[in-house]
C-alpha cells in the first residue's frame, strides 16, 4: 500500500470546562492516502470535523489538542509554528466549508478573494493572479467566469459560491483537500453537481480528499473509504462498500437502518382513496419586493402559481421541491399564515381562503401545523404545559381541563407527564419536536401540515419522529401534508407526492409511481440527484 499523505495518531482534543464531555476527539487515529476520498461520518456533536480542523490549525479558540500527533510530510502539524502553519495552509492543505453563503467575504470581489491565495504565499504577479483566478473559475465550471470574477459573492448562487470556494482551494494544487460538509446547505440537484465536481477534480489532480458529512447518501456517492464517528471516537473504518453494506458496529448499523429507504413505505399500487377533506383550487400568491414609494422598480415573484390539489382523509400528501420552489408558501397559504391572492382552500367544505376574524380562528382548529426548527418553534419562556394548553384555552376550554389534556397529549407523543412543568430548553431537539406535535394535536385537528418537520434532526432522531407521525396519523385518522426537500423522507412517509418547481406543481401522483416512473423532466433530475440512490438501487436490484 502507498504511504499515507496524512496520519492522525491517537489524537485527543480537549473541550473547554463545562462542555458536555471532556474531549471533542478522543484517541482518534486514521490515515489519509493520496488519491482517495475519505469520508468522516457522524451525527451532530460527534466531533467529526475536529480532527480536520486540527490538521489545518483552525480549531476554535478554547479547544486545543492535548495528545497525539498529526503527521504530514513527516512532520507533526501540531508542533509547527504559526508561520510554518501559514505556509502549509492553502498551499499544501486546502479546505472548503459548509456555508457557501458566509464563507466568502461579502465586501470583496471573487477574483480578489481567489488572488489572495497566491498573495498569501507570495506567488505570481497581480496580473497573473487575476488570470489564474479566471482559469480556476473556468475549471470549476462557473458559467461566464470573466463576469463571475468581477462579481461580489452575494451576486452568485449557493452552488456557484461553493464552486468559488473550491476554485480557491485548488489554486495551489494542494496535496490534501478537506471538505467540511460542503454540500449540506445546497439543494439536492446542486449537491449532485458539486459532488461530481469534487470527484472529478480529485481524480484529475490526484489529491487526497477528506470529506466530512453526516449524510450516508453522500458517503455512498463519493467515498472510497469511510470512518464513522460517535462521541469523539471512531467506531468503525473501512472501504465504502464494507461500511455501507456490512456495517459491523451497532451504531453504524443503527444509523444506516435509520436512513429512509427509497423503496420502502408505500404499497406498490394506489390504495382506494377516501373522501377528500381538503381541496385546493387555483391557489396563487405573488410577492412584490423592492419598490419604494416613488422610484424603484418592484420585483414580482410568483411564489405559488395556480396550485390545485386535494387531500383525502387519512392520507399523507408530500410536497417536495428545492428551496424557492414555493412548497412552504403553499403550506402557509393553506393555514392562512399567508393570504393567497386568489384560489379556494376548502377544508371540510368551508373555504379557508376567504375567512377572517372569528370564523378563521374557529376554522383553524381543524388545520394545524408542525414546524421545522425545534428551537424556534417553542416559546422559550413558557412551560411545556402552557405551550400545549394555550390553544384550547384560547378556544374557551377551562384551564384545568386543558392541562389534563396536555398531559394525555404528552403521553401520546411518548413524553413524560412531568414535562408539563419544564421549559423547552431542557429538552433535546427530538423531544422538542414531539412537544410541537403535541401542541398541533391539542386542538384536535383533522389536517396537519408538517413543514420540513424532520429536516433539522439527526438521522436517527428523524427516523423516530417519522415513525411517531405515521403512528399518530393512523391512530387519530389525520390527513397529513408533508412538506420536505428530502425525497427520501417523502418516499418513506407519503402516499402521494406533488413535485413543485418555481411555484407550480409539475407532477403529482402516487409516491411509488413518481419514484419509479417520473413523467416530468425536472422530477427525473430531482430523483436522479438523490445521493446514494444508484448504490441503493444496485443493492436492491
Amino acid at each position: 500500500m502507498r504511504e499515507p499523505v496524512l496520519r492522525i495518531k491517537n489524537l485527543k482534543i480537549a473541550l473547554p470546562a463545562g462542555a458536555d464531555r471532556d474531549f471533542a476527539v478522543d484517541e482518534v487515529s486514521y490515515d489519509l492516502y493520496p488519491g482517495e476520498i475519505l469520508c468522516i461520518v457522524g451525527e451532530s456533536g460527534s466531533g467529526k470535523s475536529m480532527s480536520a480542523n486540527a490538521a489545518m490549525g483552525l480549531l476554535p479558540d478554547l479547544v486545543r489538542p492535548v495528545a497525539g500527533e498529526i503527521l504530514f510530510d513527516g512532520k507533526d502539524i501540531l508542533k509547527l509554528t504559526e508561520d510554518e502553519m501559514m505556509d502549509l495552509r492553502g498551499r499544501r492543505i486546502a479546505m472548503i466549508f459548509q456555508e457557501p453563503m458566509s464563507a466568502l467575504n461579502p465586501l470583496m470581489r471573487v477574483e480578489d478573494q481567489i488572488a489572495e491565495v497566491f498573495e498569501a504565499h507570495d506567488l505570481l504577479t497581480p496580473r497573473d493572479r487575476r488570470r489564474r483566478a479566471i482559469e480556476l473559475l473556468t475549471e470549476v465550471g462557473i458559467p461566464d467566469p470573466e463576469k463571475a470574477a468581477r462579481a461580489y459573492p452575494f451576486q452568485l448562487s449557493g452552488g456557484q459560491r461553493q464552486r468559488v470556494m473550491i476554485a480557491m482551494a485548488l489554486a495551489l494544487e494542494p496535496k490534501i483537500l478537506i471538505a467540511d460538509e460542503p454540500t449540506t446547505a445546497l439543494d439536492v440537484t446542486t449537491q449532485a453537481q458539486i459532488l461530481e465536481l469534487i470527484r472529478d477534480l480529485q481524480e484529475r489532480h490526484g489529491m487526497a480528499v477528506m470529506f466530512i458529512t453526516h449524510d450516508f447518501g453522500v458517503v455512498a456517492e463519493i467515498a472510497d473509504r469511510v470512518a464513522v464517528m460517535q462521541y469523539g471516537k471512531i467506531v468503525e473504518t473501512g472501504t465504502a462498500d464494507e461500511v455501507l453494506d456490512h456495517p459491523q458496529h451497532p451504531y453504524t448499523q443503527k444509523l444506516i437502518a435509520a436512513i429512509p429507504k427509497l423503496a420502502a413505505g408505500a404499497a406498490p399500487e394506489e390504495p382506494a382513496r377516501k373522501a377528500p377533506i381538503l381541496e385546493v383550487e387555483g391557489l396563487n400568491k405573488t410577492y412584490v419586493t423592492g419598490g419604494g414609494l416613488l422610484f424603484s422598480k418592484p420585483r414580482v415573484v410568483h411564489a405559488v402559481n395556480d396550485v390545485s390539489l386535494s387531500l383525502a382523509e387519512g392520507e399523507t400528501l408530500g410536497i417536495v421541491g428545492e428551496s424557492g420552489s414555493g412548497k412552504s408558501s403553499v403550506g402557509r397559504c393553506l393555514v392562512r399564515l399567508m393570504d393567497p391572492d386568489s384560489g379556494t382552500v376548502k377544508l371540510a367544505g368551508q373555504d379557508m381562503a376567504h375567512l377572517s376574524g372569528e370564523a378563521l380562528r374557529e376554522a383553524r382548529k381543524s388545520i394545524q401545523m408542525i414546524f421545522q426548527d425545534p428551537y424556534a418553534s417553542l416559546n422559550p419562556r413558557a412551560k411545556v404545559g402552557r405551550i400545549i394548553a394555550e390553544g384550547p384555552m384560547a378556544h374557551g376550554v377551562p384551564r384545568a381541563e386543558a392541562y389534563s389534556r396536555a398531559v394525555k397529549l404528552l403521553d401520546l407523543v411518548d413524553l413524560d407527564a412531568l414535562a408539563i412543568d419544564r421549559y423547552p430548553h431542557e429538552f433535546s431537539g427530538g423531544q422538542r419536536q414531539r412537544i410541537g406535535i403535541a401542541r398541533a394535536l391539542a386542538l384536535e385537528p383533522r389536517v396537519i401540515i408538517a413543514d420540513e418537520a424532520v429536516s433539522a434532526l439527526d438521522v436517527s432522531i428523524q427516523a423516530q419522529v417519522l415513525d411517531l407521525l405515521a403512528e399518530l396519523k393512523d391512530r387519530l385518522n389525520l390527513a397529513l401534508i408533508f412538506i420536505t426537500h428530502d425525497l427520501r423522507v417523502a418516499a418513506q412517509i407519503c402516499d402521494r407526492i406533488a413535485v413543485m418547481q418555481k411555484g407550480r406543481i409539475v407532477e403529482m401522483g402516487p409516491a411509488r409511481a413518481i419514484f419509479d416512473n417520473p413523467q416530468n423532466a425536472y422530477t427525473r433530475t430531482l430523483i436522479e440527484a438523490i445521493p446514494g440512490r444508484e448504490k441503493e438501487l444496485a443493492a436492491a436490484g
Partner: protein
Amino acid sequence: MLRFILMRLGKAAVILIAIMTLNFFLIHAAPGDPAAVMAGEAGAADAKFIAQLREQFGLDKPLLTQLGIYLKGVLQFDLGFSYRQQMPVAQLILDRLPATLLLTMTAFVISLVLGTFAGVLASARVGKWSDTAISSLALLFYATPLYWAALMAVLVFSVYFNWLPGFGYETVGANHTGLARLLDIGRHLILPATTLGLFFMAVYMRMTRASMLEVSQLDFVKTARAKGLKRSIIQRRHIFRNAMLPVVTLAGLQAGQLVGGAVLTETVFAWPGIGRLMFEALAQRDYNLLLGVFFVSAAMVLLFNLITDILYRFVDPRIRVA
C-alpha cells in the same frame, strides 16, 4: 444613485418641515415672547411699547398665520430676521456655524480615529491586560459627564499648568493672520475638541472592539486563514472592513447629532458656536433664530445620514447593487 439621493432629499424635506412645525408650536408654547424680553432690556417699557414691538415682529397675527409665513420663508431659503440681534437669522447662523463645525468635526475625527484604533488594538489583544486597560478607560470615558471632564481639563491644563487656553475660539484681540491664526485656533481647539470627543471615543472603541470580535467569528475569516493569509492582512482586509460597517452607521448618526449637541462644550469653553447661540436664543425667545438653529441642526443630522448612506453604498456592494 442620483435617484436615490433625490428620493432621500425629498424625504428629508418632509421631515424638516415636520420638525419646524413641531418646534414652532413648542417654542410658542413657552411663556414670554421676544417683545417682552426686548422691552425688559430696554430699561423701561409699557404695554403700548410692547404692543408696538409685537406688531413690528408680526407676533400679533394668529399663530397659524405666523407658521404659514415662516414656512413659506423657509421654502424660499429665508430663515427670517432676528429682531433681538437685528440681523438676518441665516447670517447669524452662518457666522457661528464654522466654529461649531470645526469643533464638532475635530472631535468627531479624533474620537473616530482614536476610538476605532483603540478598539482594533483591544480586540487584537482580547483578554490581555492591554485590552482590559483600554476597555476600562473606555468605560470610564463613557461614564464621565462631558461638561465635568471639560471643567476638570480647564482646571488642570489651563488653570494649573497654564499650557492651553481654557476658553474662546482664538486669542481675543490678538489679530493674528495666516498661519499664526490657524495655530492659535488650533491651540484653542485642543481642550474642547478632546473633551467633546472623549465620550464618543469610548463609544467607537467599544463598538469597534465588539464588532471586530464578532466578525472574527464569521466563516469567511476562517476561509481567509485557510488560505494561509497573514494575521495582519486578515485583520485589516477581512475583519476590519466588515467590522466598520456598524461603526459607520453609528458615526453617521452621531456626527449629525454632534452639531446640536455641543451646547455643553460650547458653554464651558465659551466657544462661539450655534449650540450656545441656540441657548441664548431660547432664553430670549428669539423665535426665528431658535427655529433657524433647529433647522440647521436637523438638516445636519439628515445630511450626515445621507452621507452615511452614500458612503455605505460604496463600502458595502450588497446595498450598492441591490
